[in-house]
């Protein structure tokens, strides 16, 4: 109970979200290059 709170879960979710957004970005990036 006296342990200092650290938002591990929130940070992990944030990292997963960023990785997902980067994956989506590069997916569309390569689709756009393929179409050009």
């Amino acid at each position, binding site marked *: 109970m006296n342990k200092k709170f650290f938002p591990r879960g929130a940070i992990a979710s944030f990292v997963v979200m*960023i990785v997902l957004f*980067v994956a989506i*970005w590069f997916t569309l*990036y390569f689709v*756009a*290059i393929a*179409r*050009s």
Partner: protein
Amino acid sequence: MDRGERLALALSSFLLVLFLSSAVFAVVHYDVGLPTCITSMEPFDEGEVIEHAEDRYEVHMLAMKWQFDPEEVELPVGATADFYLASDDVMHGFQILGTNVNLMAVPGAVNYARVRFDEPGEYRVVCHEYCGSEHHEMMGWIIVE
């Protein structure tokens, strides 16, 4: 500065540099064209298709309520077309489905994109900017054969 704040700043900066350099790399290495804007209307203020060579075309596309002029453009397979897009009245969209051409027809300006059609087929051109009561029926065709 807090350690977490420094980390967030570093990560954001890294991603920004990554995305920007990827875009620049695509322009330089893959010769990907970016849409550009010309502010003089003439001679792009009427629809026209100009054939410069067997595989080089120049298309002056005029967007108006609620059609594109020319409505159909016929091109041979492998042709490279330079699209110059202008608007006769209000803002319109111009997207050639299946390609990277995605422009806005802005009154008083001319937007440009270059595209090469390697695959035969009928490419639908749609207006994706609301321009009035018949916006949903505003479309054209690029016929490549």
